[in-house]
């Protein structure tokens, strides 16, 4: 999932036919006159309450506020940029959103006559929603139902219909998971203008959108894992673990937790296995660099090869030792394709291996207790 900053989201809206206020990334300025507004660009909500948005009526105020905002941290994120934008007087504010409903397996359009507030605070019955059948797309009857649902005035119906159609079409054309405009404002001239934009894009659709790359978010550990092609999850525990598959990752966490273990950091190997043993070695290094009490490798392959993983583990441990480090104890449970070969490789390096999940978990907990007692 790729989260766009507001100004990126607005560029996307503009290329999909929407009107947005004039704006520029500070220190550049929009071509319009004061009053302006300075807005922190962060990939999280709540910036208004945090002081990340300031009304500025002249150049002096702008410089003061923009500098102040640029230095802020909001929701754990450094402000990436300050967006300076035309301030538009709103006659009315609406909420509109197109998103993928993963559970129903179809796009939905959502609209509300009460925009500019948090949509969760609006009573559900005042929110209009239609599900879009991917086989037929957005049809007139669905638009009409949304317009009636928000009590759209007759003289605004044509414009609102266009906005909702563009919203739906942009969701598809951009392979977006969500395009939320809140507020969509009706200005004094009767135009509908997107005053904010929250856009989430599907990174799997990158092949259709040259240049689209997921921004690697999360902690330093998580970003490193991501750069290696794996999924890292930073949790506050002392058992590091490396698994294959999301289900197995969650199950390992559950199993160890049930036994009283404190798990984290975790790595789900994901696409790593297509990259060869040395990439596995880098994952091992990364996990051990987190200084866990024990490292648990829990892999079950019925298609990929375990000997590749075994080589990677051995190589990772060797690298650490070669660099003068002392790796944490390691428990290996592996089962599946090339299991005997993997056992042999590990055995040659003095690493025992079991194929039993439950037994391995017990070993991990025992090792963990031992390490903690020893003060390792």
């Amino acid at each position, binding site marked *: 999932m790729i989260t766009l900053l507001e100004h990126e989201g607005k560029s996307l809206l503009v290329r999909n036919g929407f009107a947005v206020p004039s704006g520029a990334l500070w220190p550049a300025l929009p071509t319009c006159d004061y009053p302006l507004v300075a807005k922190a660009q962060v990939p999280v909500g709540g910036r208004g309450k945090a002081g990340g948005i300031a009304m500025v009526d002249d150049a002096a105020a702008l410089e003061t506020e923009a500098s102040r905002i640029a230095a802020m941290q909001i929701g754990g994120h450094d402000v990436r940029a300050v967006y300076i934008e035309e301030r538009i007087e709103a006659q009315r504010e609406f909420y509109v959103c197109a998103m993928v409903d*993963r*559970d129903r397996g179809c796009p939905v359009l959502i609209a509300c006559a009460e925009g500019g507030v948090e949509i969760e605070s609006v009573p559900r019955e005042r929110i209009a929603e239609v599900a879009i059948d991917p086989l037929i797309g957005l049809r007139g009857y669905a638009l009409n139902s949304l317009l009636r649902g928000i009590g759209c005035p007759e003289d605004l119906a044509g414009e609102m219909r266009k906005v909702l159609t563009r919203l739906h079409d942009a969701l*598809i054309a951009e*392979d977006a998971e969500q395009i939320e405009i809140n507020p969509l404002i009706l200005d004094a001239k009767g135009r509908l203008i997107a005053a904010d934009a929250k856009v989430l894009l*599907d990174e799997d659709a990158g092949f259709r959108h040259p240049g689209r790359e997921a921004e690697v978010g999360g902690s330093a550990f998580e970003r490193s894992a991501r750069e290696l092609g794996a999924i890292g999850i930073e949790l506050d525990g002392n058992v590091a673990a490396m698994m294959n598959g999301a289900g197995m990752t*969650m199950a390992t966490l559950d199993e160890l937790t049930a036994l009283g273990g404190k798990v984290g950091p975790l790595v789900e190997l994901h696409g790593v296995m297509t990259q060869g043993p040395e990439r596995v070695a880098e994952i091992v290094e990364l996990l051990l660099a987190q200084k866990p009490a024990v490292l648990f490798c829990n892999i*079950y392959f*019925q298609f990929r090869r375990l000997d590749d993983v075994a080589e990677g583990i051995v190589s990772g441990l060797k690298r650490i030792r070669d660099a003068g480090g002392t790796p944490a104890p390691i428990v290996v449970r592996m089962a599946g394709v090339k299991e005997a070969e993997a056992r042999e490789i590990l055995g040659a390096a003095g690493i025992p291996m079991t194929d039993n999940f439950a037994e391995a978990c017990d070993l991990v907990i025992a090792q963990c207790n031992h390490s903690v007692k020893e003060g390792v």
Partner: protein
Amino acid sequence: MSILIDKSSRVLIQGITGSTGRIYAERMKRDGTPLVGGVTPGRGGQEVAGVPVFDTMAEAVAATGADCVLSAVRPSLALDAVYEAVSSGIRLMVLYSENVPVHDAMKMCAFARAKGVQLLGPNSAGVISPGKANMADISLERTRPGRIGIVSKSGTLTYEAMDTLHAAGLGTSSIVCLGGDPVVGTEFAEVLRLFDADPDTDAVVLIGEPGGGMEFRAAEAVREMGKPVVAYLTGRNAPAEKRMGHAGAVSSASGDTSAAAKAQVLEDAGARIAPRVTQIGAVVAGLLGVGAA
């Protein structure tokens, strides 16, 4: 018997000349799966693992009478692969490809459903009826034929579940992996009903996960079933599901979709809950009063 596939199935591999396709083809031939051909555009007339390659699904189906297809194409081709396979008249499709764009997934699932084709995936580890036919990312030698059905969102946990069943002296009739992606073609509920109607299945293991509402709909099926269901929900300790911004909260699929909430709903519907993945086999054996519980 078994569900979805058996010895009378006629299986194709879409993308059979690719590396994953070739591995599957060799394995199917070795395992006795009724593989009848493969499809790679522009490679018509070649052979892989002793079966003919065709240019199009339509030609392959016409020439071989195939009714099932396993597809291992790259994600950018997955939508077309499903459209072509579904239009060719097959009955069951396993889409092994992962990282399929969600908009493509929505379209392919809607189309497969519209045409009455059972689509497993995207990102499905497939389906196997041990000893009969194998269209899964599961080694035949690690299976044991028996009378327990498995339906799972996760490929790897399926292996674990199998092992615990074997350890408890049980085997499997069919194993069905729905696919790890959020939007997939087949629901738990549909597969549960198939197992309920299968004379060679005595009980079903369901392996679910947090997020989405599929397990809640499964609970409705459990309520109507004659056979016992053992459910394991992974992710009890998973960090809270990432919400898709504000809109996620107002969309219909809201509510508590944690593993614990799902386990509760399934238990209320009559399913037995296996608290840990390593205990699945023991819980099933205990429920049936058989094996080494």
